[in-house]
């Protein structure tokens, strides 16, 4: 089942670590956000394949925005 990974806070997208189609395991870093001088890794919540990436480096995300979808 597809699982949406959402931003927990307003942040800048600092680095995209995975690409669409990658197989990831629970706890792997997908994307690194930057907010208030802190790097915040966004982690895979379960094993799966990255079926969609909704952000690019430099984007600003709001709390609740979908960052990636794991299929």
């Amino acid at each position: 089942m597809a699982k949406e990974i959402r931003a927990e806070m307003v942040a800048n997208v600092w680095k995209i670590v995975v690409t669409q189609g990658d197989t990831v395991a629970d706890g792997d870093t997908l994307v690194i956000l930057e907010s208030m001088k802190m790097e915040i890794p966004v982690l895979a919540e379960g094993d799966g394949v990255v079926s969609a990436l909704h952000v690019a480096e430099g984007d600003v995300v709001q709390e609740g925005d979908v960052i990636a979808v794991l299929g």
Partner: protein
Amino acid sequence: MFETVLVANRGEIARRIIRTVQGLGLRAVAVYSAADAGLPFVREADEAVLIGPAAPAESYRNVDAVLEAAGQTGAQAVHPGYGFLAEDPLFAARVEQSGLVWVGPSPDSIERMGNKIRARNLVSAAGVPVSRGTERPVADVDAALAAATAIGFPLMVKASAGGGGMGMSVAADADGLRVEFEKVQGFAARMFGDASVLLERFYPRVRHVEIQILGLADGRVVALGERDCSVQRRNQKLVEESPSPAVSPELRLRMIDAAVRAGEAVGYRNAGTVECLLDTETGEFVFLEMNTRLQVEHPVTEMVLGIDIVEQQLRIAAKSPVSFDPDALSPTGHAIELRINAEDPKRFLPGPGTITRWDEPAGEGVRVDAGYTVDTTVTPHYDSLMAKLIVHGIDRDEALERARVAVATFRVEGPKCNLPFFAELLENPEFVSGTYDTGLVTRMRS
């Protein structure tokens, strides 16, 4: 003395400096980014200049824009606060070359203390205890592994140019060192533009205790007692107190002697802080680093000594005597500072937002240094510090009780806020007993 002081900073510290500048009958000039136009420090300054967009590199770290604002407003002195340009020797030199007074130590002192390896070698030569570690940057993983045999595990892998808890990592063994060395080196190159890495002995149970010093206009270096900053998350301070529950009068004298020696080694002028690690089991301490600027937590020292450190900075910069007798300091009672951050109280992840409610506590022995008020916005562009709550009491118990009442009555709504963490901490047996070390917050959250 100069008549107009430009404050090259933002938020709570800009506001706090402006208060003292104006209290001395001087004019205060603020500089601000487009993201901060609505904050109290901009309104409270006598004059405020927009110097650029939100990105710090284009505003608060933009040397040309800050100096241009100084020229435009007729400022004769520049106070850098902490962070941003405060420890940039090139900025300090540019300020002086522009004919302005720099409210801080000489560019030479900043530079010599700014590099961690150089600083450690320098103070060690002056008789200050330092931890076992590398005396020059470690070139690669093989050199690191060789050095590790002499120092012993566990080790701290540290970016030489790092600070504020960034660019440091613990290695428990050789395998860990291989991983952490590469990580810290990469991070240092990216973040600080300087990939130098050093290794130091890591002490698992330590307290972080620092000594406030002042290099006076007449050349003397004096110490204003210690602050205990052992309540930390991610190597960043959350709480500071003075005096330290772990420092005996005899130990205090030894730490003060070391801090004064460190200051004298570079002919230090103005306010600075000598940070040390204190081994809770042996009572031995080692030099960690020197911060060549006003410290976030300076208010706890002000509360126990009854002096205004920013005022002393301005007096020293003006080559005037300080307002108190350095030979007759008389600390009174106990002070505790809590850093009220826009972050959640469980995982300490930041959460900016617009403040819809902001009710500050008040009462005897309660001080709030805030950068925000109701209807202002905490943005993701800067650090998460919203305010500092400082309490003072006749002893530690009274300070703790005042802190509990103040935390319970402080109301912040809108952004995330770590106030509930402090309510929990102030009931924690380790913290209340004063026996805690830098691992406390991790233990509370595991």
